[in-house]
């Protein structure tokens, strides 16, 4: 037996702990933390712990960007989107001023151009097919979804392919990042960033009201949003940059490709200093890998602490195909679009970078296309 039943004293409801997977998650996270501490890297350990907390928070709050966007586009419900804006606002209060005032910290920036637009659009199509974005894929894989395990595998493959495509798309042109604090200073930039978030929130509420839909986030979403926002700040403090997810997938894909004999010495992306260093050094030297791994094991621990882990059956083949195609599109799109909902949208907007809002505007129509494609794979449009 791998599960034990504990009676909750107040309600008499059964909480079933899956000791095997709880132990596996805690042991795996502990091994990673021990490895980085042996290298005298407390900040790396903090990133794993921060990711672990994010995994728990996302799973417990059932915080889903993908479903929130879908509910907004199909039914006009705005609560989920507003919950996401709470995360960004909390994060922005720290990221914009600290990144502007401290040389040891930086915001999430990205050039504005065709690559960003195309990447965000393609990512959003994939997000609706896979039924999870970057963070969503991580915490649902950690939560025991075999379907999302397939999505993650193809996310990694797509992200690696995206790294090979990105230089060609950047050659199409673009302009340098536009950062609010560069024009208005730390506090003016923060005011503009919070103002833009407030305007976006007002627009979302107006749409919901017009469609007669609910626009209030649930209590669980508000609490989850606040906790996730605070954890984003903690990850920023430990890593020096806003939380990002998908670069890790690119590195994992490239490391696997190299192990299989691929020569990346002529790939332009892998000659840029950052990616070149990430490929050459330990995966535990990459900030996004540390938080991603922490998030996987955090979600696994939280899931296994409340019920038997991964006891469901594998989904139908069509649904698995949607996960695979969605994962591939998300990976490729995330690399071209400079990240996912977290790295590009949350991190970008919270840094006061214009690319965050452009990513959002390009991703919305992609979501619509993805939602229309879902029935082809036996998935609901709702």
């Amino acid at each position, binding site marked *: 037996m791998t599960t034990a039943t504990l009676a909750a004293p107040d309600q008499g409801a059964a909480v079933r702990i899956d000791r095997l997977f709880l132990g596996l998650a805690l042991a795996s996270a502990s091994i990673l933390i021990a490895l980085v501490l042996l290298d005298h890297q407390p900040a790396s350990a903090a990133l794993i712990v921060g990711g672990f907390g994010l995994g728990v928070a996302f799973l417990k709050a059932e915080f889903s960007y993908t479903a929130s966007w879908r509910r907004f586009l199909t039914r006009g419900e705005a609560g989920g989107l507003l919950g996401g804006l709470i995360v960004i606002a909390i994060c922005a209060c720290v990221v914009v001023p600290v990144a502007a005032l401290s040389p040891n910290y930086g915001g999430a920036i990205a050039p504005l151009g065709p690559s960003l637009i195309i990447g965000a659009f393609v990512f959003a199509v994939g997000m609706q097919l896979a039924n999870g974005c970057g963070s969503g894929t991580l915490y649902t894989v950690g939560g025991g979804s075999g379907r999302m395990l397939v999505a993650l595998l193809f996310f990694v493959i797509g992200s690696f392919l995206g790294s090979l495509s990105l230089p060609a798309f950047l050659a199409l042109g673009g302009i340098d990042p536009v950062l609010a604090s560069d024009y208005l200073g730390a506090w003016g930039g923060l005011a503009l960033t919070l103002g833009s978030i407030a305007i976006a929130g007002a627009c979302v509420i107006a749409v919901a009201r017009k469609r007669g839909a609910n626009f209030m986030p649930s209590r669980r979403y508000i609490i989850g949003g606040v906790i996730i926002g605070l954890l984003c700040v903690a990850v920023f403090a430990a890593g020096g940059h806003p939380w990002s997810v998908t*670069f890790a997938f690119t590195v994992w894909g490239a490391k696997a490709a190299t192990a299989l004999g691929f020569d990346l010495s002529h790939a332009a992306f892998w000659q840029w200093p950052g990616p070149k260093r990430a490929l050459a*050094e330990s995966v535990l030297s990459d900030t996004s890998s540390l938080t991603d791994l922490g998030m996987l094991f955090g979600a696994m621990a939280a899931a296994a602490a409340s019920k038997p882990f991964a006891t469901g059956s594998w989904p139908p083949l069509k649904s698995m195909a949607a996960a695979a195609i969605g994962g591939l599109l998300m990976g490729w799109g995330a690399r071209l679009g400079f990240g996912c909902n977290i790295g590009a949208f949350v991190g970008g907007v919270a840094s006061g970078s214009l690319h965050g809002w452009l990513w959002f505007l390009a991703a919305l129509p992609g979501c619509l296309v993805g939602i229309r494609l879902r029935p082809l794979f036996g998935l609901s449009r709702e």
Partner: protein
Amino acid sequence: MRTVYILVVVLGVAAILVDHLSSSSSGRALSPEDFAGACAPCGAPCPSKK
């Protein structure tokens, strides 16, 4: 599905261990944005630098 998960976790942690022990490490964990000339979270250069 549980067996697949156990395999994935064990093989994944083993792969991380092998990678960590066989790769160099220059110390603090970094993001590609930490390098001079990086213009995006993946380390892409700025359009104006081309």
